[in-house]
């Protein structure tokens, strides 16, 4: 044998070891004619002449007879990888498989690493993006917090001015009252009226600030009482007709539906919202009219206040229901900048949504709809509280409150006794045997709710109304837990207090 022949045979062996070729001759129907080489290395050891090659080699499915194609890196069902070359060979076709397992292993390693790196980079980018969003959010929150702080600072500055003005007026009129005998031209009645007006304004400011604080803490709760809609309408009409006329405005009142019904609603909060909306409308309307539209139908009360004022700009709409905001055109008008924010929150608490719309022809319309279920109240006023339930014991540590309400309740037909603290209250209970007790939640060093609890423990079966100047939900709950029948906020209008007493009498009569 020549050297070249030996070398060629050696090289062929090396190539055969590395490529492990398998050559299959196929007919035009892909049936095996002849097999040579390492068929079993690719998992085709059972392939024999006459068999349809596509049964074992599904990668041939779909190919046309006589088609020439090179398919690199094909992984077989056996797990082996091959480069497949199909080519026509005369009337037949030849399929050559050569081993690609080593190359596949090397490429898989590199590709796996590259793909995993790309996935990690993507995750890293997402993480960075979420960090950026979190940072932007934090910055934005910081900015909002700073703005809120600034707003509150401005609010406090404005509020101190609001407080000082009526206080100064009150003090000056008190001084004038002291001097009234020497100044014959000045009437004490006029001073008293101005003192009352300014004190009311101060009270309204304090209530506004406390309401906002309670709402922010989520501690303001509703106190539904019986309310006759027709009386509410008369009250609003009487309250604003004159005020509007003083401003040169017409006050229009439209009623729809049956307003003769008694409904159960937090009358104080409803009144507060409606007064705020109409007050604002009158404050900001120079000419034309302010209208209140009230309708009640199927347990829902709809309220709308429209005006012919300047309207609310698009930019201001977003912020108008936020606290510490005032209208663009507020100028030096009085107010804390909390009214609309509180109204919106109260309406939400009552189950509605305060909305602002443009009034066709100019101006604004503020409106809402809230649940207001009808109730059956046969005889609503104090006089109707049954004969024996007319003796009231009023327990409050404020001399002024005791004096004021014993006079008002007396006028309403009740017999009223008062006590300033718990020991005095016990004495009155022993001697006077009241039918109903009105007890302050806070009695200096005594707990009003403890008194309520002890009264119930000792068998007092009469009605108990707890009252407080605090609108905190916890106070209200404590009063009810102790055994109170109702809770009202001080100062309470006498009509509301009478309606509450009537309601208690009605419930007690029904229970008996």
């Amino acid at each position, binding site marked *: 044998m020549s050297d070249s022949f030996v070398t060629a045979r050696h090289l062929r062996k090396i190539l055969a070891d590395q490529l492990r070729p398998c050559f299959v001759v196929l007919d035009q129907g892909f049936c095996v004619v002849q097999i040579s080489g390492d068929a079993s290395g690719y998992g085709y050891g059972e392939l024999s002449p006459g068999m349809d090659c596509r049964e074992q080699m*599904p*990668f041939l499915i*779909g190919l*046309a007879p006589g088609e020439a194609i090179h398919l*690199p*890196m094909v*992984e077989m069902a056996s797990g082996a990888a091959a480069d497949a070359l199909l080519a026509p060979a005369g009337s037949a076709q030849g399929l050559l498989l050569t081993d*690609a397992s080593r190359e596949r292993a090397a490429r*898989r390693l590199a590709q796996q690493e590259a*793909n995993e790196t790309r996935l990690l980079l993507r995750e890293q980018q997402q993480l960075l993006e979420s960090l950026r969003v979190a940072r932007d959010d934090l910055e934005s929150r910081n900015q909002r917090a700073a703005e809120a702080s600034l707003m509150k600072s401005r609010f406090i500055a404005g509020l101190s001015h609001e407080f000082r003005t009526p206080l100064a007026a009150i003090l000056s009129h008190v001084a004038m009252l002291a001097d009234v005998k020497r100044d014959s031209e000045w009437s004490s009645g006029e001073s008293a009226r101005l003192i009352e007006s300014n004190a009311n304004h101060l009270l309204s400011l304090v209530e506004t600030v406390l309401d906002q604080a309670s709402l922010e803490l989520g501690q303001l709760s509703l106190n539904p009482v019986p309310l006759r809609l027709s009386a509410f309408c008369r009250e609003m009409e009487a309250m604003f007709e004159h005020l509007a006329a003083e401003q040169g405005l017409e006050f229009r009142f439209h009623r729809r539906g049956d307003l003769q019904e008694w409904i159960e609603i937090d009358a104080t909060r409803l009144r507060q919202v409606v007064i705020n909306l109409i007050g604002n409308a009158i404050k900001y309307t120079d000419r034309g009219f302010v209208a209140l539209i009230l309708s009640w139908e199927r347990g829902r009360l709809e309220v709308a206040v429209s005006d012919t004022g300047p309207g609310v700009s698009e930019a201001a709409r977003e912020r108008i229901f936020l606290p510490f905001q005032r209208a663009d055109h507020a100028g030096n008008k009085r107010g804390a900048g909390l009214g609309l924010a509180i109204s919106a929150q109260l309406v939400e608490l009552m189950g509605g949504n305060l909305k602002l719309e443009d009034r066709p022809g100019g101006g604004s319309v503020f409106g809402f709809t809230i649940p207001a279920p009808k109730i059956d109240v046969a005889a609503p006023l104090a006089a109707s509280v049954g004969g024996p339930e007319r003796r009231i014991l009023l327990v409050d540590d404020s001399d002024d409150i005791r004096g004021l309400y014993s006079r008002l309740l007396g006028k309403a037909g009740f017999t009223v006794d008062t006590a300033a603290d718990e020991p005095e209250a016990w004495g009155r209970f022993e001697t006077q045997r009241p039918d109903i007790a009105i007890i302050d939640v806070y009695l200096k060093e005594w707990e009003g709710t403890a008194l309520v609890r002890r009264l119930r423990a000792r068998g007092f079966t009469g009605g108990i109304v707890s009252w407080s100047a605090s609108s905190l939900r916890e106070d209200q709950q404590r009063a009810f837990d102790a055994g109170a029948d109702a809770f009202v906020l001080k100062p309470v209008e006498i009509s509301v207090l009478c309606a509450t007493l009537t309601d208690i009498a009605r419930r007690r009569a029904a229970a008996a």
Partner: protein
Amino acid sequence: MEARKICVLGDFATGKTSLVARFVHERFFAAYQTTVGVKVDAKDVVRADGRPRRLAIWDVAGTGTPTELFLRYLRGASGYLLVADATRADTLERALEIRAAVESQLPAIPGVYLVNKTDLEERQELDEMRVARLVGASESWLRASARTGANVGRAFALLLERMERAA
């Protein structure tokens, strides 16, 4: 038995191999192993009319940019699945690009979009609205999970039905 070739296409790591493993072997492997070249499996199925079909399923290595070799693997195919990863929205864009490249070469064969990995609920980037908007109203698409098997068989059945209609 009549046989058909279908290709499973899409970007890398979208779960093509897992979908095929679920469909053919009813198995799932959580570990990611990249496919190099193409892996060919076969499964015998029964058509809605009761006739059997052999499917040669070509699991083609993931790519976002179709090459000449990629298109060569498609030769003789009767239909294809376009796989996207529901946790990576950009993989649906790659699937759309692949669809355009395949249509330029093989305009007559049907394709079905398959948005995989819907089981990874907290990482979803492709909800139904977004898929519908990106894919277009005239296309067929399904959300599926190779891990749970949800909609995997249905996707192959839908593709087969469309292939039979197109044949």
